[in-house]
């Protein structure tokens, strides 16, 4: 049995979702030979600590009752203090300076703690620095959950496709904008109406600008370009246009051509081209997937084109990617 002590930093929907899945799958994971113990849960307003493993269910119930955390400690206090193998960073993304996530990640790595994250900001801002810090301290970092939710994209390329040279990646990397475009097309309704509905359904955030203006897709492209294509690019290198100007009439005109409109992120190594823009996609092509689905087309020198699709967001789906990284690290390091 391989045992790992895990800290969860950020107890919003992703952090709580992961904790719930770890608790729910405890027996299943034991059959597979893994004993995962969540030893700390930290959020902006405090922490729960138990070096023998926390009772996740009671913590979630406690938070639902609106009760405070038991300890007034922050993530940085606990990194050196509590014995832990893996820190899972799930705080909200900040693509301007990467913090607080970047600080958490770098401190953990410097203290010899492996890191798994769903937070895009630190990787967009400081990919090279994070990788160098992990290497220098002989620890691992997993970031599958930053791109494409449940789609095993990064591990697919770094694992099964590791002999291939990735020359281009394109696809739908944002579920919210895909949901809005799909609904607008099917129901011939205005962008503003569907956005409002998506907010009410919890598919779009109250501030959906990251999703609909293409910022989220552009951030993911930067991570893919730097980590899978050996490029050295910044957010500013991406040409970005979102879906806010798409009209029901433009979708009608596309329909008459046998096409729909999708927000497509594209990165091509040749010419260092990174672009997010609405594009006409024929119905008979894989990139026309609807709803909140994500899809990624990877173009390689040997395999040719590989297409992979799945749910791109949601706490449960993101947990699948986080758990995959956690178990990879347990296999390698614990």
């Amino acid at each position, binding site marked *: 049995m391989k045992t790992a002590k895990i800290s969860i930093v950020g107890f919003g929907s992703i952090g709580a979702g992961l904790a719930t899945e770890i608790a729910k799958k405890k027996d299943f994971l034991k059959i597979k030979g893994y004993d995962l113990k969540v030893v700390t849960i930290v959020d902006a307003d405090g922490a729960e600590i138990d070096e023998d493993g926390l009772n996740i269910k009671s913590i979630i119930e406690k938070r639902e009752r609106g009760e405070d955390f038991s300890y007034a400690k922050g993530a940085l206090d606990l990194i050196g203090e509590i014995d832990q193998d893996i820190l899972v960073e799930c705080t909200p993304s900040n693509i301007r300076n990467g913090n607080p996530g970047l600080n958490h990640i770098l401190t953990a790595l410097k203290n010899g703690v492996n890191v798994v994250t769903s937070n895009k900001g630190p990787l967009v801002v400081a990919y090279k620095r994070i990788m160098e810090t992990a290497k220098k301290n002989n620890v691992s970092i997993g970031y599958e959950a930053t791109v494409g939710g449940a789609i095993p994209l990064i591990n697919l390329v770094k694992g099964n496709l590791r002999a291939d040279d990735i020359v281009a990646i394109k696809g739908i990397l944002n579920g919210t904008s895909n949901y809005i475009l799909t609904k607008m097309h099917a129901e011939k309704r205005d962008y503003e109406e569907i956005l409002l509905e998506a907010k009410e359904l919890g598919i779009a955030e109250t501030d959906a600008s990251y999703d609909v203006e293409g910022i989220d897709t552009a951030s993911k492209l930067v991570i893919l370009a730097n980590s899978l294509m050996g490029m050295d690019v910044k957010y500013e290198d991406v040409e970005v246009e979102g879906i806010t100007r798409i009209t029901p009439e433009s979708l009608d005109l596309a329909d008459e051509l046998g096409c729909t409109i999708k927000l497509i992120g594209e990165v091509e190594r040749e010419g260092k081209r990174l672009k997010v823009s609405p594009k006409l996609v024929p119905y008979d092509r894989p*990139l026309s997937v609807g709803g909140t689905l994500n899809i990624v087309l990877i173009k390689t020198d040997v395999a040719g084109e590989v297409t992979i699709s799945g749910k791109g967001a949601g706490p449960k789906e993101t947990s699948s990617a986080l758990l995959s990284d956690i178990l990879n690290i347990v296999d390698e390091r614990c």
Partner: protein
Amino acid sequence: MKIKMNLELKDEPGTLARAIAPISACGINIVYIVHDREKKQANGNITVQITVEAEEEQIKKMRHSLEENKIRILSIGEERLIEELTFIMIGHIVDTDIKDTIGRIDETGYAEIVDLELKMPQKKKESSARVTIKAVGKEEMKRCMKIIGRMAFKKGITIVYPVEL
């Protein structure tokens, strides 16, 4: 009809003007000239590509006139618009003068707008148009896309191109 021809000229000052004069003298409209002095033939001469708009009789007259002036026609044939691109424009298309937009493509001489469908919403919102352009080749289509890009930026229009697969 549109005719494209390649003429062989000596790499000397004034030879291009001497080649153009007999064409103009036949009343033929020159729409497009590609004059690349860097690409030389083995004999040191250069090739100039000229596209003209002319009737059959005028072409006959022009060929005769070029031969008389000792200008060699390497190839000549009807120009065909083989590249096609359909895209969607979103914005205040009518207010920003759609005729001007069409005009800029048509006046290139190497591309034409062959289809345009405009849809206006009921409310006073931005309209959408589907445009199909045909051009004589891939390079010419790229040039068209640059023209469209500059025009869209200036007029605040969003362009939705087909995804490259």
